């Protein structure tokens, strides 16, 4: 009896400690909600000064263009993250395995085309590809799916149609170039790829049921991709406002430099594929092929994606994959531009 009493006393003490613990969190400087509150108070208090500073015509023009890209792109981003959360949480993982052919060389084009049916943004497609590899899908097919899905899915196609009114060939050229390049990278992996470059991703499992996982997925994808979208919108607004038109025109008019410049821009700004068509459309001085290169390269390889590839598949994969994807995307964009635009 005394032994029992001792045990229950011990348990009671431990659970009491567990209950107390969250009430006394360790202080590690301001938490994010406090930082946010401070920022908001500062923003409201400094509003007159901010307005004077931002009342300058140049600042007003920059802000108008920046807000315009965000207002136009956020709805598409929202739609994309909601749909990709539905797929990540409610479509059974075995489904993809079942619909893909057993032979890798055949599975690659099938995976590429299924990217057109299954909407998902690039930030979501990287973990999805990791899960596919882990469940035994040929890496080549998973990689092709990872590249194709964010580049040619219905939401991206619709946003491209909307961004280029009266020029549907831009959207078709994007579809053709992205699909061809994604399949090419998949086949290249079959020929040259080595499994030891891939570090199998750790399984990311959701606790607490499907709905919490659904909301968490939306929140995470939106905040992550939205942050990069802000960078992209800021760069686009800067290019359009601060750089003299004549300057940009000299690069833009050059057929080769224009394409290379926008491909480089796509790599640097790391925009979400659901929104990049609007930025491409706003770069009015550049040739259609250069804009196409921006839209084909962006979903394939950029700074943000390279970081995500390294995080999911390992660094030795990422350093080989990025150049291959870049070359394939650029070649396909130039070819499609020459034929279709």
């Amino acid at each position, binding site marked *: 009896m005394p032994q029992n009493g001792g045990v229950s006393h011990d348990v009671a003490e431990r659970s009491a400690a567990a209950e107390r613990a*969250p009430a006394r969190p360790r202080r590690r400087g301001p938490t994010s*909600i406090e930082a946010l509150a401070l920022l908001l108070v500062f923003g409201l208090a400094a509003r007159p000064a901010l307005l004077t500073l931002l009342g300058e015509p140049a600042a*007003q023009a920059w*802000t108008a263009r*920046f807000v315009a890209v965000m207002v136009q792109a956020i709805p598409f981003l929202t739609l994309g993250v909601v749909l990709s959360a539905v797929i990540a949480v409610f479509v059974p993982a075995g489904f993809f395995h079942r619909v893909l052919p057993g032979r890798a060389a055949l599975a690659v084009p099938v995976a590429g085309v299924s990217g057109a049916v299954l909407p998902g943004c690039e930030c979501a497609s990287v973990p999805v590809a990791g899960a596919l590899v882990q469940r035994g899908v040929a890496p080549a097919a998973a990689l092709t799916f990872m590249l194709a899905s964010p580049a040619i899915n219905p939401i991206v196609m619709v946003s491209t149609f909307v961004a280029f009114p009266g020029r549907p060939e831009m959207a078709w050229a994007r579809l053709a170039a992205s699909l061809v390049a994604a399949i090419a990278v998949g086949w290249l992996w079959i020929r040259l790829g080595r499994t030891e470059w891939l570090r199998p991703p750790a399984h990311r499992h959701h606790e607490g049921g499907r709905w919490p996982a659904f909301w968490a997925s939306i929140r995470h994808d939106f905040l*992550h991709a939205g*942050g990069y979208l802000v960078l992209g919108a800021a760069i686009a607004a800067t290019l359009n406002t601060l750089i003299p038109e004549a300057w940009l025109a000299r690069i833009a008019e050059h057929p080769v430099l224009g394409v290379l410049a926008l491909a480089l821009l796509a790599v640097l700004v790391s925009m979400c594929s659901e929104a990049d068509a609007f930025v491409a459309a*706003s770069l009015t001085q550049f040739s259609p092929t250069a804009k196409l290169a921006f839209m084909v390269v962006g979903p394939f390889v950029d700074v943000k994606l390279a970081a995500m590839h390294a995080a999911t598949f390992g660094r030795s994969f990422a350093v080989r994959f990025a150049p291959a994807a870049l070359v394939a995307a650029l070649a396909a964009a130039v070819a499609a531009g020459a034929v279709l635009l």
Partner: protein
Amino acid sequence: MRRDAQAVVLLLLGGGLLRLAVTGDYLDYVKPSALWLIVPAGLALVAVAAVTVLEIWRAREAPDRDGHGEPGIAWLLLAPVVGMLLVAPNALGSYDAERSGTAVGSEEGRSSYPELPDEDPAPLTLLDYAARAVFDEGRTLEGRRVELSGFILHDGGEPQLARMVVSCCAADARPVKIGLEGDLPADLEPDRWVEAVGTYSPRQGRDEINGELIPYLEVESITEIAPPDNEYQ
């Protein structure tokens, strides 16, 4: 970023979009058709924020970091919140028009120039007038009075009529410029909105920025108007 801070950012963004939709200010940034995208997206973001708050409240504990390592980059989303709610810039006007070349070249491939509407004066968009004047030598404009509305722009001391043309959103806005000749009031200040009634003039100038042609309008009367809801065309 902690989950409660995420909820606040999502709420501000969704609320900001809904506010633009309700006040009609969204027309300063995007085309009218974008309303059908902005409203559902704003509602969805507010809903995600509400669910997040509910989750935190149900958990009845200090909201710890999400398991997915929420990215610090999400803090950047405060920038559009500041832009939409605090700065709320006006539609682009003469400042941008002075610094960009006229966009008349985008109409160069146009195949047909239908007769003007029967009204007198016939209302036309600036881009339509410029295209008819530059690429069709004003054939459909001869002998007709037209009515154009836009804002005033000063180009080397000479007033012009201008309007920003948007193909997707304001980020790609480019001006169309029309030269004005005839008896003009002296007090035409930049960014003032006017309605000009006049006739086609064969005179043409060149835009110094991109070398495109700027057609002229022989002004009969010019009246000040309030800026339209949608300042873009």
